[in-house]
């Protein structure tokens, strides 16, 4: 019997030992909890803001598919590939090929990904805000500035989403809750633009009064970046109506940028797109990248995590048998129409900068040389051109680097030149003289100044100055000036202005159907 007792004790002991209470309560390995952040340490307060900048720069706004979709709706860029979705968008098809195309869904997610990241960061800033002592005005001011930086990117996401889809939801901080997010509803395209302008008023009031390359975090958004976005939203709202009060807003905002005397045009239009032109005094908004001057190792590109293809420069690089570093997928091919336009107006510098050749007429086995002397071959697809604004000469790349075409270059988003042209357009539309801002841009492009510039001349100059850039300005200009149906084959007024809301988004939130 004694033996049984011993056994019973042993059984009980083993059972109890193997069942200690904390055994099942443990956090996941390698997944840090948000509660681990020390919000009372205000020196960490910029960290969520830096996170938003990174989200905006990598794998979202400048992701290849979004750039492709924006570009192929205009007449300056052709797909350069055989992708059914991109071709259908280029042809303004409005059927299931487009609505269920993964690319428009990806683009939607790219834009709203920044919006969601911004909302998440604002919640973090609120946590830091709770720890700012009541008398600490300096920290309070910083907090407001940081909020404004984050809200700028949120507004930029909304602004672009409305440009491509028209009526879209505006997502505020309530969308940090997935239930609220799943039930969000659309706002009209005009309301979105008004919302963006309102947001910019907060940003203008709280951001640094500095040129971006003089900001505390060099290249961060400042008061002038916000003024630029406000002006753009107003311009879209004003449309082709010269009497619209929004032209006053455009004029006011661009005047402020102009009269700040902080900006000037980078003298060399060709080098503006290359290393010497990085974050110049012309830059109002630039996405920044780096390879840290090392031929291999850590690198930050516009591609998202583990997504080489996402790299902005790579997919626009020529399909070049000379190989890396001047090599890519050969997509986003400048159209013959764009080339002819520049040729016809003798826009030599802009043409030399933007239109680079792939061999002789694209024929395989032939070679052309870029202005910097890099050899570029023809290709199987017989594509004649590649975009020089996304060209980064081998001589300027970090010595020894062979991968990541365009590594260490930044992406130009908003430029002072555009602000000047908007200023000119607003002035002309309002019956004022726009010659001064207009000719600054024109002279920089080595063209003769024009006196008494007309609206059409401003619009043509705008087309030439921004040609083959990636933000859909050409398509938007045709749209707002009512020219789209005339100029673009396949465009039907009332039907082709906006992309359909992606099928997958409607499936997940039926409010988007209305």
């Amino acid at each position, binding site marked *: 019997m004694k033996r*049984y007792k011993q056994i019973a004790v042993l059984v009980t002991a083993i059972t109890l030992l193997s069942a200690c209470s904390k055994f099942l309560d443990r956090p996941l390995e390698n997944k840090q909890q*948000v509660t681990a952040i020390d919000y009372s340490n205000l020196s960490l307060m910029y960290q969520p803001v830096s996170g938003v900048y990174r989200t905006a720069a990598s794998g979202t706004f400048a992701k290849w598919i979004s750039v492709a979709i924006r570009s192929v709706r205009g007449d300056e860029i052709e797909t350069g*590939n055989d992708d059914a979705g991109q071709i259908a968008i280029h042809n303004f098809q409005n059927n299931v090929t487009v609505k269920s195309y993964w690319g428009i869904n990806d683009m939607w997610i790219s834009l709203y990904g920044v919006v969601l990241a911004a909302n998440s960061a604002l919640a973090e800033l609120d946590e830091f805000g709770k720890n700012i002592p009541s008398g600490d005005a300096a920290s309070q001011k910083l907090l407001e500035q940081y909020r404004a930086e984050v809200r700028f990117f949120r507004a930029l996401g909304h602004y672009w989403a409305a440009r491509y889809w028209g009526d879209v939801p505006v997502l505020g901080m309530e969308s940090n809750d997935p239930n609220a997010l799943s039930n969000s509803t659309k706002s009209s395209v005009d309301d979105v633009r008004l919302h963006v302008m309102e947001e910019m008023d907060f940003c203008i009031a709280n951001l640094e009064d500095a040129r971006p390359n003089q900001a505390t975090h060099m290249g961060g958004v400042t008061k002038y970046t916000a003024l630029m976005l406000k002006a753009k939203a107003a311009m879209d709202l004003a449309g082709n109506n010269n009497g619209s009060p929004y032209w006053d807003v455009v004029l006011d905002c661009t005047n402020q940028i102009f009269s700040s005397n902080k900006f000037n045009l980078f003298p060399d239009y060709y080098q503006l797109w290359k290393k010497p032109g990085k974050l110049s005094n012309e830059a109002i908004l630039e996405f920044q990248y780096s390879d840290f001057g090392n031929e291999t190792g850590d690198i930050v590109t516009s591609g998202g995590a583990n997504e080489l293809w996402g790299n902005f420069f790579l997919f626009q690089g020529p399909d070049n048998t000379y190989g890396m570093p001047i090599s890519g997928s050969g997509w986003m091919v400048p159209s013959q129409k764009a080339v002819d336009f520049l040729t016809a107006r003798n826009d030599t510098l802009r043409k030399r900068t933007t239109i680079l050749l792939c061999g002789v007429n694209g024929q395989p086995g032939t070679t052309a040389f870029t202005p910097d002397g890099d050899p570029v071959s023809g290709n199987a697809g017989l594509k004649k051109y590649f975009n020089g604004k996304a060209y980064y000469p081998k001589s300027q790349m970090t010595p020894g680097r062979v991968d990541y075409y365009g590594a260490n270059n930044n992406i130009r988003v908003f430029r002072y030149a555009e602000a000047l042209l908007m200023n000119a357009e607003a002035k002309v539309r309002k019956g004022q003289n726009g010659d001064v801002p207009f000719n600054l841009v024109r002279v920089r492009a080595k063209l003769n100044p024009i006196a008494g510039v007309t609206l059409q001349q401003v619009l043509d100059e705008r087309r030439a100055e921004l040609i083959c850039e990636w933000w859909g300005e050409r398509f938007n200009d045709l749209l707002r000036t009512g020219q789209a149906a005339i100029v673009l084959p396949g465009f039907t007024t009332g039907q082709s202005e906006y992309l359909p809301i992606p099928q997958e988004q409607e499936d997940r939130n039926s409010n988007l159907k209305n």
Partner: protein
Amino acid sequence: MKYFYLSVLLFMLASSAFAQTRTVRGRVQDEKGLPVPGATVTVKNSPGVGAISTETGTFTLNVPSNADSLVVTVIGYNRQAVAVADNVQISLEVAEGATLEQVVVIGYGTQRKGDLTAPITTVNTENMMKRTTSSPMDALQGSVPGVQIVGNGAPGSPPSVRVRGVGSFNNEAPLYVVDGMFVNDITFLNPADIADMSILKDASGAAIYGVRAANGVVLITTKKGKLNMKTRVTYNGYVGMQVPVNMLKMANGQQYTKFSLERRTTQDSNTVRLSSERFGGSGLNPTTSTDWYDELLKKQALITNHGIDLQGGSDKVTWSVGLNYTYQDGIQESKNSFERYNARFQLEARAFPWLKVGLTTYIVNSRTFVPNSEAFSDAYSATPLFPVYDEQNVNAFPEKFAAAAVIGREDANPVANAFYNYNRLKDFQVLPTLYAEASFWKDRLTFRSQINQLYASSLRSQYSPERNLGPGTSVTASNLRSTQERTTNYILDNLLTYRDGAGKHHWSLLLGQSTREERWRQTWVSADNVPAAEEFWYAGAQGARNANGYSEDGIRNAGLSFFTRGTYDYDNKYLLTATFRADGSSKYQTKWGYFPSVGLGWVVTGEDFMKGQHIFDFLKLRGSWGKLGNDGVNANAGYAIVSTGSANSAIFGSTADANGLYVPGYTVNRFFANVTWEVVTEWDGGIDFEVLGRRLKGSVDYYHRTTSNAAFDKPFGYTYGSVYGNWAEMVNSGIDLQLNWNDRIGDLNYSIGGNLSTLKNEVTDLGSLPSLMSGVFPYVAEFPNKIEVGQPLRYFYGYEMIGVYQTDDEIAKDPVASSYNATALSKIRPGFLKYKDQDGNGVLDNNDRVNIGNYLPKITYGFNVALDYKKFDFSIAFQGSGGNKILNLNRGKLYKASNSLNVDEAFANGFWTGPGSTNSYPSANAIADGWFKVGNSFFVENGSYLRIQNIQLGYTFNVGKESAQSTIRVFATADRPFIFTKYNGFTPEVSGWGYDMNVYPISATYSLGVRAAF
């Protein structure tokens, strides 16, 4: 090395001399004349000589010439002695009160087969050993009803196993329990080490493993010695050749040229011309015609296995040792193979009359060269107009592979891609088990405490050499990626079993407690420019380490369980099994899950009213209900997660003169839900019967499994992020049927067996989502599958192709085509596919996309015939599946093609060429157009097949002296020699969701083998 083994084998055969013995053949049967397998036949007064009767009751024994009688013993029958004769027939009588039937291994114990209330399939390990497969589960293909096994051709890679359908979004593999240890896969096991294998399919059987039983449980017991046995040595070996079967025929150079020119693009005619210029031919008639599959596949590849098994026991100690070597070369023309060394040691000692202690250790060392399966997909689309090698490709090194670029194409060279792949996985595993078992109260009460552990470590070296595929392109630097993994798991079980009875009442009670932990950790590093010699494969010390070229990750999960099982029967007639298990897991926010089950059985033939009838020799009705948990669900944080580091930090100050610097940042993912147990509720009703003098045995089961709280990543708008939670419900139901006929005609014993299972899968709830789309990269959007309430899981979603537009007139009259042509810039022409306008609105839109097939087979089956004549035995096994569809992604690649890809010969010969030519293939011209490039049923094919899985012919004879004689069986085997299918691909065995891309083809194996027991 392999030849060494071969010669040892031959030597052993040659050196066995015949001695002064007499061969006795016989058959053991019961009172009704039915065979009794597993009976021990020994020679009286020389216990060292003996044999065990086969499935058909036969045995062959070499007895000393002076022997006079044989003794036959088997559980459940009276011991019997008979005089020695050349051909003896031994009829056994049922022992008083003994049970006729075998004992089946069930969860945490054993049970008499007759008392089971659950449909538990006991695997016939003899038949399993007939198959020449390196992994044990492959050997079960087609032999267990309700268990679908989809093979994988790559050496060393496990098949995918589904028990009674798919009931989870997370995992479909069953739980494997090897001597008490939970593992996810048993490819590491040597099939010869398996003594017993039971497959628990329903709740009554599996719920005792509540925590992970939702996908079924495979219980494996490895071999053990017996008390007081003479040491037995068994050698098992075979040498075979694997040969590719059902080779996919591609369009040759001429056929390719023909259809690519029909597309009328400059690019295609350029390719043809350039091929002529560079590789032979003239103008538009190139002579090059590379059969890429032929180049990519070996004519034959070796497979071999050698194992030695020792078993023995004294009056207090039993022991066994197993050693095994397996080698399987891959049929891809590249470095791909699987090599495994197994060692097993088992020791059990009766320390006191009431206490047993034991130790089992399983050691596995394996080396796998993982192939680049993508090369198979490349071989499908690569044009035949360029050769494998090209001496003119001056820049190419180290090999002069040809580059498609010289003929203006972007195709990969499939042979080069396979050749430059080096992916070696070295794996080392130890599974020690230590236990003590105490018995009291005349063995009515036993207490067992057991600790199982699993230590595994692996090193994966992926080396891509410095190379240039030319022409003109730059050199790709060499790269090394080393990945180390380490797994340390343990399970501690404490079991108390009480077994008793009174009169006709019998009962048992099990109380158990189990504690588990699973820990896994992975570290990888990567560097460029690492030297080619393996001695220098150290990232960082050699070459240039990428700053982002390292990472660490890991998991750690804990579980705690309490369980009990009670069984009761009255007179072995009325049977009851009830189990209950409570499981706690660290992975979920709702930690505890509770899993009850009840099983009932009624042995109808035990009733008095059945005594007079002669139809049923045995009839049992069973029914069970229970709940099963699935802890294959992902561990869930249940809190907002912060991501920091350089990937979440922005660059500032990247200017003309400065490179810019990170400003530290972080991002927060706030989207999370709390997760609880995913639970399967299963009903099962079944009948077991034996009729016609026990010659026909069978069982039928109906099952109905509902998975509730099925966990998946629920996507929501605006983000690729998703919230993981318990959102869905689905149902699997069907019938499992098994029949076996056993009889003899004179000296010919034969058996015919078959099994069949049906499956109906339906999603019944998806939470708030109307549907959910997914697919396989990079065709997620183009060829989606859809999960929708009321439909089977992940059906292929797209337009239904109903023919081909034959004439312009037909297009003009068709509302869909004419409305499309009204606006589209690229018009529909004759030879284009015609899709069904499901809603009849005259426009092809989203509503016209429908279910165009499902990857889950509606039916899986297997059947076999075994013959046994004197010393010969022969068997043949078939298996197949029906009702499943395959999405032929090899053809589907045309979707993204910017120039003409190659197609299979059937496709090339089938192209529409003019009105009336065909209604099932598009024209060559049409495949370049966007109209063709939509997910549609043209790409969905019937995946049904029937395969001859195994044919074996064996011959058994006895050799050796009286004192040390041995039984030797030699056998010739053909595994998977023939397949019958309409599918236009290499193999209809496509694992995963039924997308055929990068699938490593299954090969046939022809082998010779020997089994010798001393």
